[in-house]
């Protein structure tokens, strides 16, 4: 078998897509993940492609248990997303998907930090095209903010790498830890992509602004890449337990009052990421397994939910809970598939979320994080509330909005169906997923305590929703803008900045006058001597050239004789 790094196949496809007609591009979006996935499936673990620049040894294709699992995952995500996007005829989106998926694969297969950084940045740059592809001013500005934050993450990573290498650290991407400043910087870089609290707003800001298909890809790669990087670089870092705990809890409140259903999914994504970060922070074999498995499942069920919402957006052009409702009559299949996704994210037994989320929670309990466990429990109930019930309820049931439409194109349905089958398949037969995990813990989710505890949570959570809804206390879907951390840089900082600028302008005015005078003098001086007609650049007469020859000869002779 040929050991070809998957990113090469995707990048090549991206180049081909740039010059080929639509029919070939569409075929590639499905064929490339399938072929590359098959190649990966038949490749044994090991290091394959290394390169050397000056003294630096890089590793382009490192396949171990962890990177293989994410490799499979990204291929599955790219394949499902490819099927879902088959009807798209937008060249920009198709090309950027290849580079985005390819760089995500490149990053998880990267064996050293510099290679990781390169793919980290390609992923950032190629993914922003999916946001801009919606071609509205909102998406343009949102994409710009997204890009700035992603690039900032890359720069932090680069600085961290350079410091790490400069202090004699290993170039190999393995455990990093927070013993040094470099370690903290790299953690910050990973943290931005993993949507840690206070730097999470790029996610909820940009994902709802991307194209219906773009969000599906965005939700699959960027954050999971960060989870992979955290799992490799910072397992067992206790701080992550509490960060993860916060991430599971705070988005619930936002999700409950948010109107844009894709933004609700964005918040629920942060909540799911919280479980993974928490698991990585706990750091036991069971917890890491849980985090990784949950990342795997999350890509599929969150992808399924984003796809179902994308289908609704595609068919109706609307995405606000207040505008939608009653769509189950015209979109029964989509409704069913969406409910499968909702059941999975809520961790119903026999659906995929259950088999992985419970691993993290068990690990938290067995490591005596009782408080954390309670917050996670609360978060599980909250997930069910906003993602499990709210999404399908407001989109497909609730009050009848009067919208009459049809099922989405068959490729969209097919993609959703594949994802739904995977959700149920993994939920019923988790042993196949467990076999791929990095550690072997012998964990089995279907024991009486787990199942009963989970069902109780779900039941009472549902009861609460029904009761609140009946009493009319449940926050209604309103058109509103909910303030999040992004307010700081979208409103607060600009306002402060305006103030500072006014003060600066006033105080600088006098200094500027003086500086202008000096600069004018310098400019005149430079043009006088260096400009096209200046002393130094006009053609000298042979006489003055000879003068310089003599001056030089004289000074040499002086130097040698004295």
């Amino acid at each position, binding site marked *: 078998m040929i050991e070809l790094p998957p990113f090469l196949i995707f990048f090549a496809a991206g180049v081909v897509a740039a010059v080929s007609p639509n029919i070939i591009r569409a075929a590639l979006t499905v064929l490339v993940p399938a072929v590359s996935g098959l190649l990966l499936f038949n490749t044994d673990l090991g290091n394959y492609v290394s390169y050397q620049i000056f003294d630096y040894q890089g590793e382009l294709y490192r396949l171990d248990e962890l990177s293989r699992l994410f490799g499979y995952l990204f291929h599955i995500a790219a394949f499902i997303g490819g099927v879902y996007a088959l009807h798209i005829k937008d060249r920009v989106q198709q090309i950027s998907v290849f580079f985005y998926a390819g760089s995500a694969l490149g990053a998880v297969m990267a064996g050293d930090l510099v290679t990781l950084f390169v793919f980290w940045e390609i992923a950032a740059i190629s993914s922003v095209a999916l946001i801009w592809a919606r071609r509205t001013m909102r998406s343009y500005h949102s994409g710009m903010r997204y890009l700035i934050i992603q690039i900032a993450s890359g720069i932090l990573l680069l600085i961290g790498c350079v410091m790490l290498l400069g202090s004699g650290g290993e170039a190999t991407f393995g455990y990093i830890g927070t013993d040094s400043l470099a370690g903290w910087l790299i953690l910050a870089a990973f943290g931005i992509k993993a949507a840690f609290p206070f730097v999470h707003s790029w996610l909820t800001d940009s994902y709802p602004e991307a194209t219906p298909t773009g969000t599906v890809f965005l939700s699959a790669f960027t954050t999971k890449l960060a989870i992979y990087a955290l799992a490799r670089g910072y397992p067992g870092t206790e701080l992550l337990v509490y960060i993860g705990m916060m991430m599971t809890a705070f988005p619930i409140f936002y999700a409950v009052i948010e109107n844009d259903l894709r933004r609700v999914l964005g918040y629920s994504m942060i909540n799911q990421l919280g479980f993974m970060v928490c698991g990585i922070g706990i750091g036991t074999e069971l917890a890491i397994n849980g985090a990784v498995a949950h990342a795997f499942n999350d890509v599929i069920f969150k992808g399924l939910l984003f796809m179902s919402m994308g289908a609704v957006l595609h068919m109706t052009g609307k995405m606000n809970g207040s505008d939608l409702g009653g769509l189950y009559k015209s979109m029964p299949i989509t409704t069913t598939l969406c409910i499968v996704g909702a059941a999975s994210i809520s961790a119903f037994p026999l659906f995929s979320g259950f088999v992985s989320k419970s691993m993290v929670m068990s690990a938290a309990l067995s490591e005596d994080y009782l408080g954390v466990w309670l917050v996670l429990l609360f978060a599980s109930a909250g997930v069910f509330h906003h993602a499990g019930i709210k999404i399908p309820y407001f989109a497909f049931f609730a009050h009848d909005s009067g919208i009459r439409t049809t099922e989405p194109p068959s490729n969209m349905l097919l993609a959703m169906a594949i994802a739904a089958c995977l959700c149920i398949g993994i939920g019923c037969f988790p042993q196949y997923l467990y076999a791929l995990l990095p550690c072997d813990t012998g964990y089995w989710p279907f024991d009486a305590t787990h199942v009963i505890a989970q069902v109780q949570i779900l039941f009472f959570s549902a009861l609460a929703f029904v009761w609140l809804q009946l009493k009319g206390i449940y926050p209604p879907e309103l058109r509103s803008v909910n303030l999040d951390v992004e307010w700081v840089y979208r409103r607060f900082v600009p306002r402060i900045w305006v103030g500072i600028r006014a003060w600066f302008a006033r105080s600088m005015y006098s200094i500027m006058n003086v500086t202008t005078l000096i600069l004018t003098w310098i400019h005149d001086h430079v043009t006088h001597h260096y400009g096209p007609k200046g002393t130094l650049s006009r053609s000298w007469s042979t006489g003055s050239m000879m003068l310089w020859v003599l001056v030089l000869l004289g*000074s040499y002779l002086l130097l040698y004789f004295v």
Partner: protein
Amino acid sequence: MEHLPVLQVVIPLVLAPFCFVMARHTWLVALAGSVLSLVCSVLLLIQLLAVGTVDYFVGGWPPPWGIELRIDLLGGFVLLLVSLIAALVVTWAHDTVESEIRDDQINLFWCMFLLCLTGSFGIVVTGDVFNVFVFLEITSLSTYTMIALGRDRRALMASFRYLVMGTVGATFILIAVGLLYMMTGTLNMADLAVRLPAIQDTTTVRAAFAFFTVGVSLKIALFPLHQWLPNAYTYAPSAVTVFLAATSTKVSLYVLLRFFFTVFGADYVFGDLHVDYVLLPLSIVAIFVASIIAVYQEDLKRILAYSSVAQIGYMTLGISLANAQGLTAAIVHMFNHGLIKGGLFLAVGGLCLRIGSTRLSDLRGAGRTMPWTMGAIVIGGCALIGVPLTAGFVSKWYLVIAALEKDMWYVAVAIFTASIIAAAYVWRVIEHLYFQQGYAEASTLRSEVPLYMLLPTWLLIAMLIWLGIDTDLTVGIAERAAQSLVAP
């Protein structure tokens, strides 16, 4: 095989008269001459990589009676550069020569070109200081003629000024050779190196060294003796500009290295005479002043010409650091800069042919009508700045390392700052080519140059990228050459 050193010189020398007597198809003769020379120098370099130094006694007469040809790795490296550029220029130049030179003078032009090639090869292969002067004059005289063949009337004046300055430079070198001969009674470089140490503290030898240094500074166009260069590059026919810019100063630099390190010896030059006290400041001033002047030029050829003056400053800077790394950097930059300027001027020659001008104001928007030519200029410009993954980065990198090795951090800072100025003048070109609307775009007649002109250009440009990534060829050879110069 054993006659390769002499064949290198004889092939173009014998072919040159054919050009003179033939009325047509002289281009083919020049092509044959340059390609055969390339084959020669490649074979020579392979031989040199194995054995290090090749000696050849002309006519079988050993020195000190006969003339000795002596080539080491440095020589082989310069031969490769010169013959490679020559072969590419001739391949490329068929159309531009026909458009820029009067029909009845084309055969003369190619004759001069081959003579110039002869001279350049001769300077490199010979082991005799008087021969160096002779070949230098052959090169110079043929170059004056070629520049004067340019259609622009200002070419005559440029050629004349170059003639005056070049002759002064050559005379100074001749005076130095004469003084040395007077003191030692020999002209053979190896003999001189043996006999000089005994008498090196006499004023005569010191004067000889001063004359030589100034003479060769003129030939390499070291600031402030660079004044002949911008006009010569600007008004010469395109093919001549390419060949001059890529090889002539490099060959003169080779002469400088040969005299400094082989004839006089590094200990004498840097230890006793401290030539670096003058050379180092001049180099830094050259880098800055020439770069700043380049920013303000209105003509693309002049921008590149002043940039050449600045780049020569980098090379002499490396030499005046007087350690093995600095020398390596200088030799690598000599080769890399030859390729960079060769590639750039080939592209500019294409512009000359299609647009008929190299003034920036006439080139506005040409990036859209001649994408391949402009692409070459962009990549070549990046290499000139020293962007990583191009050849220019490698040589500047080694230069910075050499400076830091000697704790001259201010030199390293100067190199970085000058790179920013280089970025300024390259950007100015790119801005005119791509971001301004204008004449070159509006005209429908302008189109890309033919493939056989693009191929040599892009071959050089591709080499820039290749040598920026794989440095085995350049740095490997330069390191060995520098070692053998410092510790013969």
